[in-house]
């Protein structure tokens, strides 16, 4: 009798402890910081290049980015004539796909007002996406039955590579910054993954396990090659936007993510933030039956 009372009490108490941690949305008074010059420049050999420039806003300002339109933006590769961008429809654009040469360093130049900014990034090779593997999963933990997918590709052996995998589901880009799929060679970081097939956590990153794929859905997967600085940048973005939940206790402290944009000349009232990256892209599509 005594023991069953204790047993019941123990379960109740356990449940209470683990349910008792909680999160609340609260109002916080943040101090003001001066605006900075933000550069969003991801160039690929897959789409017409698009660069967005904006000023940073107060943290809680959700009115949407205020894009700058009176800057001069160009990219040079030291071989061909400079690629000049013109502002149209919210971004600086170049009218055709830039043929990115492997091993070449590209330089981005921006003149905005009295300031001149520059950034460099180099082009790395990207392996082909061999296939999409699909497995049917029974209903588990109360979720629907359906498919989960993984992309198969092999890291290029003999060199240190960095990759970013992006995917859209039914034509909608899956763009949660704390879920970015990035890798060093075939794994998360560190040595030893050179030349291997991408490890399961990376290749299965293209699933939303709370809403697995149903028949007739389709996905488009892209694998981008990036350089080490962009890899560090994306890692920091994941870390800084992913703090939260029960794992908040062991999350990294808040810090400012790095930037590869530098102020070359001009009064430094608007410090640069953001990133410039050049990537070769492999793609693959799949429709679930």
């Amino acid at each position, binding site marked *: 009798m005594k023991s069953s009372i204790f047993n019941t009490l123990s379960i109740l108490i356990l449940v209470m402890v683990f349910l008792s941690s909680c999160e609340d949305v609260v109002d916080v008074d943040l101090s003001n*910081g001066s605006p900075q010059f933000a550069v969003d420049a991801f160039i690929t050999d897959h789409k017409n290049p698009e660069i967005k420039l904006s000023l940073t806003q107060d943290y809680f300002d959700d009115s*949407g980015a205020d894009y700058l339109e009176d800057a001069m933006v160009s990219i040079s590769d030291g071989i061909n004539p400079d690629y000049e961008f013109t502002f149209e429809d919210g971004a600086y654009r170049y009218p055709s796909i830039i043929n990115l040469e492997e091993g070449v360093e590209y330089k981005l130049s921006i003149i905005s007002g009295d300031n001149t900014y520059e950034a460099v990034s180099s082009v790395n090779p990207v392996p082909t996406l061999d296939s999409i593997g699909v497995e049917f999963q029974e209903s588990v933990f109360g979720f629907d039955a359906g498919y989960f997918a993984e992309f198969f590709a092999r890291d290029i052996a003999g060199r240190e590579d960095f990759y970013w995998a992006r995917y859209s589901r039914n034509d909608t880009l899956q763009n949660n910054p704390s879920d970015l799929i990035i890798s060093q060679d075939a794994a998360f970081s560190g040595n030893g993954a050179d030349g291997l097939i991408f*490890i399961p956590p990376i290749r299965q990153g293209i699933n939303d396990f709370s809403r697995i794929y149903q028949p007739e859905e389709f996905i488009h997967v892209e694998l981008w090659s990036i350089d080490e600085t962009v890899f560090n940048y994306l890692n920091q973005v994941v870390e800084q*936007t992913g703090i939260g939940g029960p794992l908040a*206790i062991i999350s990294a*402290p808040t*810090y400012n993510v790095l930037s590869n944009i530098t102020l070359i000349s001009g009064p430094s009232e608007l410090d640069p933030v953001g990133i410039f990256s050049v990537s070769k892209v492999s793609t693959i599509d799949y429709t679930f039956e």
Partner: protein
Amino acid sequence: MNYLIKTICLFTLIFSSGILLSQEKYNLSGYVRDAANGEELIGATVSTADFEVIVSTNVYGFYSISLTAGTYEIAYSFIGYNEFKKTVTVSENFTLDMELTSSSVNIDEALVTGEAENKNVKDIDMSVSEMDIATITSIPALLGEADVIRAVQTMPGVTTVGEGASGFNVRGGGIDENLILIDEAPVYNSSHLFGFFSVFNPDVVKNVKLIKGGIPSEYGGRLSSILDVRMKDGNKKEFQGQGGIGSIFSRLTLEGPIKKDKASFIVAARRSYIDILAKPFLGDDFQDVKFNFYDLTGKVNWRLNDNNNFFISAYKGGDVIGFDFFSFKWGNTTTTARWNHIFNNKVFMNVTGIYTDYQYGFDVQVDDGNGFKLDSRIQSVQGKADLTFFANQLNTIKMGASSNFYDFIPAEATFASEGESNDISIDKKYAVESAAYIQNEQRVTDRLTLQYGLRFSLYQYLGGRSVYTVEEGETAGGQSEITGIDNSAGRWDAVQTYSNFEPRFSANLSLSKTSSLKASYNRTAQYIHLLSNTVGSSPVDVWTPSTNNIKPSMADQLALGYFRNFKSNEYQFSAEAYYKETQNVVDYINGADILINEFIEADLLRGDARAFGIEFYVKKAKGNYTGWISYTLSKTERLVNGISNNDWFPNRYDKPHNFNININRKISERTSLSLSFMYASGTPSTFPTNRINVQGWVIPQNANNERNSFRVPAYHRADVGAIIEGKDRPDKKWKSQVVLSVYNLYARKNPYLFYFQQNEVTPQTTEAIRYSVVASFIPSVTYNFNF
């Protein structure tokens, strides 16, 4: 060098003056034990009736008191025991062991019948909190589990960053700056998962002592404090058992004589059993869930003869979490073998051998061809010898030496992808840490006692692996460059040697019979560092040795205190101020990669830290109500090149105000109530000021580039508890008690941290989330028994 010569001269001068003043004295020595179970009593007082000569038993229960020839009434006393007086005639050195009987508490009389009057005022110890197990179990505890670390946190100068963080901070020092010892073996992680419960099973603990300043020369290796926990030896007279059934843990301890009065043992086990109990309630999907904490302790001691005592203690504990294909475990194992040898009435020696093994590991086995395994460990073997020479009435000299051999295994890791596996292990790192010390405690005049000593520590980072050199970062705060990788150093070659003199000094100036002024200075060196760049400590934090790149940390601490007792010891008061400066604290670049990183030293930064504060402490030791109040006002900050605009910024664990009150009241013969309340400032945090829009993401940014410039709201909490003893039946051996407690009585959602994120539904909107680890009140019932 000049500094060293001056210290030696001072030491010799004072010491020789002490010797010249001595007359023909004899030493009366022996052990003081508990009459019921033969346990040696630590810190018991032995004195002449007029308290002119007064000594305490050491950690082995041994005392030696120096007296001129004559007849004396010697008083033996200890808190919770009846005082015993014995008349002795001293004409030569002789041995006298004593047994004290524990006092039963009469609610109308003083609770403390045995503690020597004004011990806290007279002892050279300052900045010390000593707690006996009865006090620890009287504090209402989370889920009814009495906890040594939680009790220590109610003392002045001790703070934590909140529930869910393991470790504690002493006088503004990091959690790795505390040397936690269990029967002299260092413990690298003193809490079970996420800091809710410590690794100490209260049923086995005999004595807990926290030294925050004025650290005596015999201790070293950490900067901020020593937490010295001693286990019971085991009832030497009769077989005894005790245990409890609680909401989370159940415990059982068995002890008894192997040979009455000569040898005894104690074994204890404690395990949580949430996983076993929850099994029937969880669905099929959760059947494989493993989730348990455990502690196993065992000790055997053998008194060969009056002069030789042997002890072997072992501890093993850890946590296991797992389900389906994933498991995580961590644990500490320690083993100590000790030999006490008494040369004569004046000389006591202890020799100890220690083995420790701290490890954690992951095992993820998705299927046959895909998996990941990581094990990280620290193994160490240490030998030490300590000698105490009870020279005369005025001088007690201690000296000793130790050597600790470390094997750091940062990562033994493999992973497999589609059947292709790869070893990503990191080579072991080896180091040796040695020390030698000498110290004298001298009664210079009737009013002035000094304790002065010198510790010399020597550390060698050995080879047997690749050694790389790191140049300071090309951009301040950025990753450093690796220049030069050298494979020539052998396993026993010293790649880098560091040595330090650590002078230690304390003084006690008696102002009156019931008040004194104390001052201390100590210099400490720390050669191993805990790398943790997360908000709270996590179980996978990495301990790393000092290397050719990572310099040892050094701290200098000055403390000054005033001690005063009122109403014949009913109230004890102390006020202490401290100032501590630390060099070479470890900090991290943004996004530092701590786990499985061979070149981790390139991700580290070096800085300086300083901490200062004032601590107030009042204890009511006698009467119907007993308890204590502590309040600390403090500041702790650091300066790191490349962080926070090269300005001093608050440490993560800076808590300017820290207030604790604990009250215990016996309301009837069988029932006592306790209440505790704590209030502490919130911890500093880094918040964003701006947002960057890139690729549709909202990235937080602190445009002022400051770290820890915001503070979360204050932490406060009240707990209540009641202990109801079972009816006392003198004929039955089985005694029981029920412990009730409510943790976080008024269910405050104490914020542990704030984080900022995009709203799930409208990603352009950002919000601040307050995260609390414990957000409701938690009641519990525990049934304890002993037989």
